[in-house]
């Protein structure tokens, strides 16, 4: 099923709700992301950021609502929708007994990427793990594992990317490369959603921000729009101050 009215929107979320038993993790959340946009998902602990990302990446089924990825309904045509996306969890989870190269080969088989070796080489070079291509994950540092997980996600050239705390465990050089990589992919036309507590990261790479609290949307828009909404006319109010004002400065 295609969403003819929203073709410009690579990610179109409408009325997303997720219950865990009696607990509601996300309630009636709607937003859209267009090609080239980077949406920062922020909120206190337990706000529903990871649940939202997992739902829109097709990892867990939503309790209600409609999600479209690249024009494909995630519930009705999950294969077509998932073919367009990549999800990067906060912790790199790898297979213990596949080497770096074999991880990429396995992903290529799952996504049906032909001639993956031609694509894998530049990716390994870009993330500086080419010299570790025949190592098992046990021999890699946490940062290298993170890089491998990202290389695997990018192998099928996704047009929609979801990052959950992408800078966790990276060294300063890795953080700079990751930020550049996100900006570059957005400039190439990808729609990106990233969840992070690092507000300076969001200020640097995000074009839009969505603030969540207890599963509900508090604000959604470009950074200048959000700033204008919460600055109360004060000049030079940074995103950290905006976040504290918007969320009331506590988890509850």
């Amino acid at each position, binding site marked *: 099923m295609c969403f003819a009215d929203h073709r410009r929107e690579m990610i179109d979320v409408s009325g997303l709700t997720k219950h865990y038993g009696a607990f509601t993790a996300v309630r009636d959340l709607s937003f859209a992301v267009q090609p080239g946009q980077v949406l920062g998902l922020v909120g206190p602990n337990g706000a529903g950021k990871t649940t939202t990302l997992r739902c829109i990446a097709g990892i867990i089924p939503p309790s209600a609502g409609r999600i479209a990825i690249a024009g494909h309904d995630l519930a009705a045509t999950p294969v077509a929708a998932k073919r367009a996306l990549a999800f990067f969890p906060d912790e790199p989870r790898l297979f213990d007994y596949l080497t770096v190269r074999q991880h990429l080969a*396995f992903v290529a088989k799952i996504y049906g990427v032909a001639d993956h070796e031609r694509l894998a080489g530049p990716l390994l070079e870009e993330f500086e793990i080419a010299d570790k291509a025949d190592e098992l994950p046990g021999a890699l540092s946490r940062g290298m594992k993170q890089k491998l997980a990202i290389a695997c996600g990018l192998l099928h050239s996704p047009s929609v990317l979801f990052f959950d705390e992408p800078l966790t465990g990276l060294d300063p050089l890795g953080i700079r490369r990751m930020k550049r990589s996100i900006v570059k992919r957005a400039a190439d036309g990808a729609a990106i959603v990233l969840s992070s507590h690092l507000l300076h990261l969001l200020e640097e790479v995000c074009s839009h921000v969505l603030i969540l609290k207890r599963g509900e949307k508090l604000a959604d828009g470009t950074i200048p729009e959000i700033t204008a909404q919460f600055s109360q006319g004060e000049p030079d109010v940074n995103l950290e101050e905006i976040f504290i004002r918007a969320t009331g400065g506590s988890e509850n």
Partner: protein
Amino acid sequence: MVRAILYLRLTSLKNFLLSRLRRLRQPKYLTGAIVGLAYFYFFFFRHVQHLGERPGAASVSPFLPPDAGASIAAVGSIALFLVFLLMWGAPSTKPGLNFSEAEIAFLFPAPLTRRGLVHYKVLSAQFTALLQSLLYALLFNSRRLFSGDAGFVIVAWWALLAIVTLHYQGSSLTLARLVERGARPGRRRAAIFALLAGVLVATGYSFWHGLQKLPASADLGDYFSRWIPGVVNEGPLRWLFWPFRLLVQPFLVHDAAAFALALAPVAGLLVLHYFWVVRMNTAFEDASIAHAQRQADRVAELRRTGVLRLGEARRHARRAPFDLARVRGPELAFLWKNLLSTARPWFTLRNWGAVALLLIATAAGFHALLGPAYWKAGGVLAAGGALAGAMALLYGPLLTRLDLRHDLANADILKTYPLPGWRILLGELLAPIVVLTGIAWLGLLAWFLGLQGHQPPALSPKWFGPEMRIVFGLCAAVVTPVVIAMELLIPNAVPLLFPSWFQTLRTPGGGIDLMGQRLIFGFGQVLVVVLALLPAAAAAALLVFVT
């Protein structure tokens, strides 16, 4: 999909085997592998004398009589019936489809349908079942495994394990769907237990009815061995046990034609199960992610502490074993902390006092009831107490991890404490010494009470008279904590003296080399105790000889 699964499984298996072979270059693994292989040789391969030779149609096992097949089939059918019944009546808290964190990260966002994921798991489970079937054939049918029947045994095990796995997955998914639709688990459990009660009543009646017809001189063991196959193969319950008899049958045949005939209905059941699971469209993702997270936490905890937590992580604070403010000495603070860390909250003075009182009350009750025949019950109490005490003394130190090893992950913090090393080690050893001594003392008390008063006529009054029992009991009570402390010194010295060996002992998973390493440490512990007790034992033997 199938190609991707085969690639993942076969490549992982190849890399796993290669990494295990490569690590044998390190002496600690090579030594462990040699000891582990020797263990396997003595327990499994030593009896294999005629490789490739069929064991004979009548033989089920070299240790059992030729006509034991019917009884084994019946017992197997009953066991399978109970396993399947439990899957519905008392289902596991795990989701039916257990994905690892890596599988969730790579496959859940991948372009696969939910049915595709189920398919992946079902096919992956067959791969695991095949490896398990080789292990089970080695453990339970080693003689047939190394004979011309090897193929039959492996296929029979694989088919059985595959059906059990598929039934587990299917029942879990079905129950999850029923819960989704608002079904009440209470009714289901009531129905299952009603069925079980019906079966028990029917079998009990059948047993009693047969017993009534039995002549007084008949052998009860013989009657029982004929009665069990009768329950499964005859009477009204034969229909209930019919599918389980089918599952067991391939294990009992020896020629190709009979095997094919026995396997055909099992294959039919396998196909039915396969379609049942694959066609279920139940949301399993949330439960699978939560389970994978719990598993990952347990593995991380095992790597950190060397202790495998079996249940859920504790969420509520436990009552303190004693008032820390009232005691002096940092060693007792370690004892207090480690007692709070025990897997079970039973080790409190109040509980032990309650068990001691229960033992005394039980013994007094039997005394009042049986009078001169007290030794019939007292003998059992004494034997049970002696066994429990001996187990606590010999196996307790091998099994416990409630000492320095449990705290090694916090070694950096321990080193900053203003205490000499010996006080920290003493403090860390106190908890297992206290717990195991407590169990051993309760065992001693049971032994003492069991032999009190009218003792078994077979026991010599010279060695088991009241005075000797008191002397022996007191000596054992004094020596027990010292022996336990001695046993615990070996495993606690290992991480300090051979840290790299200890790290390998904390490695999750198995392997012949790791098993061999654990055997070496077990032997070391036993050897130390034997050597330490040798002079005292020699002195005691001399005393017996002189008197």
